[in-house]
């Protein structure tokens, strides 16, 4: 059956941190890394408004997800040196575990993992010439838990984490990520289950870079406009460097979902730069 829902959402930690002391703490560490220091520090009221706006946007995505009544949610995200280190960096990794756990500050997460769907995707990939890495254990991190806190607060359905290497060079091309998404769509089409997919990350930000604090809002707005037009396939012509220079390397996660939705138009987009580091973006494709 065709995919029943497709979503994309930023996973910036400060979406889930509490406005006030937790935000200040987070900003202090980040700004200590930025050579130009803290340019724009959002006031407490601005922090609260950002949280409220993000919750409203994620509320739309959650309503779309609930309405689609999915049997499983595929979560396409990147690691950031939690599960993978320089001894082995998988370009694409599928989780073949029974369950997956993680913690974000005081919030604990535990989901069943759809192992069989994971194996089906790995096998389909090998048939098509996309050779995924896979493994039986991962620890969930903010790249999954921040959006899941809002989108799937009760673990009523299993998830399936798929990792894309967006965080160390060399990383896959946008075109290759799109092809992975096409493969997921084919698997969904041939499945009797109701499959939903979520990409996380982005939009513009420079984690671990001296450019942290810069947000390329113009580039982000262009991405969202193209998705609303259903022309996301055109992003396959971007180079990795195009995304890197705009701080949008995590858009590679989104490229998988864009490959999965094909020419479908995004039905909802929201965007809010957080002043600290990241242009928060939220998208839903309602089918």
């Amino acid at each position, binding site marked *: 059956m065709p995919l029943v829902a497709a979503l994309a959402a930023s996973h910036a*930690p400060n979406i889930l*941190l509490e406005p006030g002391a*937790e935000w200040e*703490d*987070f900003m*202090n*560490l980040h700004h*200590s*890394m930025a*050579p130009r220091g803290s340019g724009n520090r959002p006031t407490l009221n601005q922090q609260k408004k950002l949280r409220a706006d993000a919750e409203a946007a994620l509320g739309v995505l959650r309503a779309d997800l609930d309405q689609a009544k999915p049997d499983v949610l595929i979560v396409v995200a990147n690691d*950031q*040196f*939690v599960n993978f*280190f*320089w*001894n082995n960096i998988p370009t694409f990794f599928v989780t073949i575990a029974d369950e997956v756990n*993680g*913690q*974000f*500050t005081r919030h604990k997460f535990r989901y069943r993992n759809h192992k069989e769907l994971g194996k089906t995707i790995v096998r389909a990939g090998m048939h098509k010439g996309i050779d995924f890495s896979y493994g039986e254990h991962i*620890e969930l*991190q*903010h790249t999954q838990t921040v959006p899941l806190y809002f989108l799937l607060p009760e673990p009523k359905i299993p998830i399936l984490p798929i990792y894309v290497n967006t*965080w*160390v060079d060399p990383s896959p091309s946008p075109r290759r990520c799109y092809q992975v998404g096409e493969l997921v769509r084919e698997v969904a089409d041939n499945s009797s289950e109701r499959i939903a997919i979520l990409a996380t990350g982005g939009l513009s930000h420079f*984690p*671990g*870079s*001296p450019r942290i604090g810069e947000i390329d809002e113009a580039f982000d707005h262009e991405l969202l406009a193209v998705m609303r037009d259903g022309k996301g396939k055109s992003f396959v012509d971007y180079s990795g460097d195009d995304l890197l220079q705009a701080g949008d390397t995590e858009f590679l996660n989104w490229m998988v979902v864009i490959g999965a939705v094909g020419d479908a138009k995004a039905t909802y987009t929201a965007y809010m730069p957080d002043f600290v580091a990241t242009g928060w973006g939220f998208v839903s494709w309602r089918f």
Partner: protein
Amino acid sequence: MSCYHLSRLLFNLKMDEACFEKSLQDFEAVMNEYDLTTEERDALKSGDPRKLRQLGVHGMLCLYIKRLQPEFRDNIYWKQK
């Protein structure tokens, strides 16, 4: 030149509580457990992420040296992954 061992120590400062605790007590002893050059040891002791970056460490791992600094030791950043 690879900076694998330097990166590994920084990774462990965030991911391995035993390594972090031991580093607070005796960072020299921890550094001795890794195959580090003199330059790498000096960069670690300086506590300056920029010096670590110049040696080829990924920017995200450079940040982890801040966990040893009193100002950032209890930062919320270390309570999430």
